[in-house]
């Protein structure tokens, strides 16, 4: 590969909604920076209102940044002339959560998957058809479903067709925004396997957005944890989950109900108080301080610096060093226990 630049580079990105002069301005994404190298699966986890969907839409150029930059390799998509951007954006596709809202009810699945090619003016009618059928085959949708209408398919089948439609223009980057959230768990598992397979086959880079820690943790190489418009932690997926350096990540992990066959759950759960604060009046200092079990005065006044605590692990919390020491301790005692056994 000649490309050494990251497939997606986000630098100090801000997205603000609301009128410029108005008093009500909502900072959906508020100073976010990260790189996604080519071929990586970059997971973004966060709760509703954290700004993760806005971030995803900004990455593919559907929303313009208020400040900061999004770069696609060497390219700044927002600086391109309109027609050039329209051609460029084919390489950066997004798939959204609800497959029911994604299809025109009057078009067959095959027509829907052909449509991007028509708009792009690629190939003859027969070639487009062939390409679309191939894509439906690649996402393991039975060929007899190609001429069906959306209402005749199940949610899982529709989501497969949705993926086929995103892939038909041969993109390099796929932003997946809660793509398995609406599916039953047995169907979800098949979809996650499919995403993994497609990544190998099409040489794709994913930005995988979800509220589900299990899903993101399973599929991603690295994950970013978002809270209230900011990334609070980034690192390799398993490390972040096993050894969180931010109290929010720890709380998210702890809140996930685990399947445990022990009679009583020995794990200490952290139940956060309160809810995500109002977007109109963000808290001062660290935005998590209103719900953080560790918060002290400093957290209310001073915003924690974004820093690389250990190689590959970025975090923004005044207590990250303490978290690291504590988890080291836990790690060590675990090792001692297993050594003793």
């Amino acid at each position, binding site marked *: 590969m000649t490309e050494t630049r990251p497939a997606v580079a986000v630098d100090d990105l801000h997205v603000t909604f609301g009128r410029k002069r108005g008093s009500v301005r909502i900072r959906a994404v508020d100073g976010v920076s990260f790189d996604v190298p080519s071929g990586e699966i970059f997971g973004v986890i966060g709760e509703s209102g954290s700004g993760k969907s806005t971030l995803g839409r900004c990455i593919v150029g559907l929303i313009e940044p208020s400040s900061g930059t999004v770069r696609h390799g060497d390219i700044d998509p927002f600086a391109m002339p309109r027609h050039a951007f329209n051609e460029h954006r084919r390489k950066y596709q997004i798939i959204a959560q609800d497959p029911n809202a994604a299809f025109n009810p009057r078009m067959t699945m095959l027509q829907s998957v052909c449509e991007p090619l028509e708009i792009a003016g690629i190939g003859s009618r027969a070639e487009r058809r062939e390409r679309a059928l191939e894509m439906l085959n690649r996402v393991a949708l039975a060929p007899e479903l190609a001429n069906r209408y959306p209402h005749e398919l*199940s949610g899982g089948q529709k989501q497969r067709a949705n993926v086929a439609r995103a892939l038909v223009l041969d993109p390099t980057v796929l932003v997946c925004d809660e793509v398995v959230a609406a599916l039953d768990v047995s169907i979800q*598992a098949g979809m996650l396997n499919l995403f993994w397979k497609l990544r190998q086959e099409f040489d794709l880079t994913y930005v995988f957005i979800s509220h589900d820690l299990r899903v993101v943790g399973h599929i991603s190489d690295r994950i970013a944890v978002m809270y209230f418009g900011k990334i609070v932690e980034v690192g390799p997926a398993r490390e972040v989950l096993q050894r969180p350096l931010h109290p929010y990540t720890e709380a998210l992990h702890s809140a996930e109900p*685990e*399947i445990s066959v022990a009679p009583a759950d020995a794990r200490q759960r952290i139940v956060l108080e309160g809810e995500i604060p109002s977007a109109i009046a963000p808290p001062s200092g660290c935005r998590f301080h209103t719900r953080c079990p560790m918060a002290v005065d400093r957290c209310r006044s001073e915003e924690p610096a974004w820093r690389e605590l250990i190689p590959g692990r970025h975090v923004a919390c005044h207590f990250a060093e303490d978290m690291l020491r504590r988890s080291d301790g836990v790690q060590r005692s675990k090792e001692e226990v297993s050594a003793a056994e």
Partner: protein
Amino acid sequence: MQQVGVRPTSASRDALLDIQDLTLSLRDELGWVQVLSGVSLSVKPQEILGVVGESGCGKSMTALSILRLLSPRTSRLGGRILFGGKDLIAASEREMTAIRGRHISMIFQEPMSALDPVFTVGHQIAETVQRHFKLGTKEANERAVEALDSVGIAGPRHVASLYPMSLSGGMRQRVMIAMALVCEPRLLIADEPTTALDVTIQAQIMDLLLGLADKTGTAIMFITHNLGLVSQSCDRMITMYAGQVIEGGPVAETLRQPRHPYTAGLLHSIPDGLRERGTLHSIAGRVPSLRAMPEGCRFGPRCGHAVQVCEQPPALELVDLHEIRCHRWKELELKGAQA
């Protein structure tokens, strides 16, 4: 607590709710179709029963049948739903009105569609109280404020004066819980009460729900697709598939050693952080259409263990505390959740 006309049945003498061979047919433009095919389950006083299954398996329909919330013009119920010994299927509409909200309450997945947008939440809770108790408006309002306070709402008096639209999803679900438990019912049916909520809010709501139920001695029929929540909160669980109960038993034992391939399949579909990517277990195919149910085992066409005998419908076998609807459960060694 007083008992409503108890007439013990042979099956489960001590059950609060005892559903026997419940069938439900619904009518749509194509005619009648059977949605529940002989569902039997029981909930003991103060017990928390988890009802697990994927969309379309009939778990919500079972709940709606218990409360008789389906229109008699488009639905037909069969079998028996014994609540405190009384058959709810045979109960009059008037008797049902006296039971709903007083002895059996329900909370739904989407609180916004269960709350009336044009009345304050305080008014809606007070209305529930007044329906069942002879109380003046002032006293009922006071009970509503107390109920809001008991679900951990700060400034309950103020919140009582608000309309549902000005509350967050988590707050609305708290209001729903306050309303459901204000009359201290003996059974609460909770249908995916936290599915629409963020995971940190889900943890708050579950703690609240379990704490309150424990205090008031309310039994819960907890409908969910989330096996983690079942594992954390329920005493017993049943798995439903295509309108039937296919497995049931104490939670920890069932999860450690599922006996039905479908329960095991659900368990292994969940990403657990250990499995390599691309190797998640997924259940092939899809839930059969209500109008084209397999003649034999309903899970047969999707089951990796299906053999010839599975073309015959399996009966629900009772073994100790477990029930299993599978021809092959004795010979299959299914993997469960790890300790």
